[in-house]
């Protein structure tokens, strides 16, 4: 156990936040399209980087649930679905929430 980088537990944890976000959003919005992109490496070493490799994400979500909702309402819907992830467990979450019509 003198090589921590070889710890299999770390390997299996990588990407777990991405997966958690994906599952929560799928359940909440049954999206037509969903991209969860981990941008953390681009922010490495800056103030919001906690060293976890899971500090910055971008979400692109296309769902009929957003029809008739303002930008503010859509982001609130996504934030609510993600509970304590935005701003607390993840430093930064960029959200692009579109209806199927807008995504075409």
């Amino acid at each position, binding site marked *: 156990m003198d090589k921590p980088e070889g710890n299999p537990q770390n390997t299996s944890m990588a990407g777990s936040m991405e997966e958690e976000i994906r599952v929560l959003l799928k359940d909440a919005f049954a999206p037509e399209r969903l991209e969860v992109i981990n941008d953390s490496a681009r*922010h490495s070493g800056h*103030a919001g980087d906690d060293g976890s490799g899971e500090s910055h994400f971008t979400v692109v979500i296309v769902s009929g649930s957003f029809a008739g909702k303002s*930008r*503010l309402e859509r*982001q609130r819907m996504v*934030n609510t679905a993600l509970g304590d992830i*935005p701003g607390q467990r993840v430093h*930064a979450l*960029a959200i692009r929430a579109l209806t199927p019509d807008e995504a075409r």
Partner: protein
Amino acid sequence: MSDINSRISGIVGDNDVVLFMKGTPLFPQCGFSSRAVAILDHCGVAYESVDVLQDMEIRQGIKAFSDWPTIPQLYVKGEFLGGSDIMMEMFEAGELQTLMDEKQVAKAE
């Protein structure tokens, strides 16, 4: 209303445009705050900025006040507009400039 809520509503009531951000317009401490500053500068409006890193009470309080989990946050004439994603979408659609005109926000000096 708690002390912090009345402090924040005082700030957003006293200024046409208020950006709650990390760092200052000259030295933003986060890419999203930096983007928000760039957008407001492009719009050419005068705005007040509040550096939440210098004020822990506001840093926590603003999230509950706006019911919004992240910084930056933009207020125009007392109304919460959103964070940097919404600012960027509105700016790209020309809506932010229109809104500033409609609300008769003062231009930057």
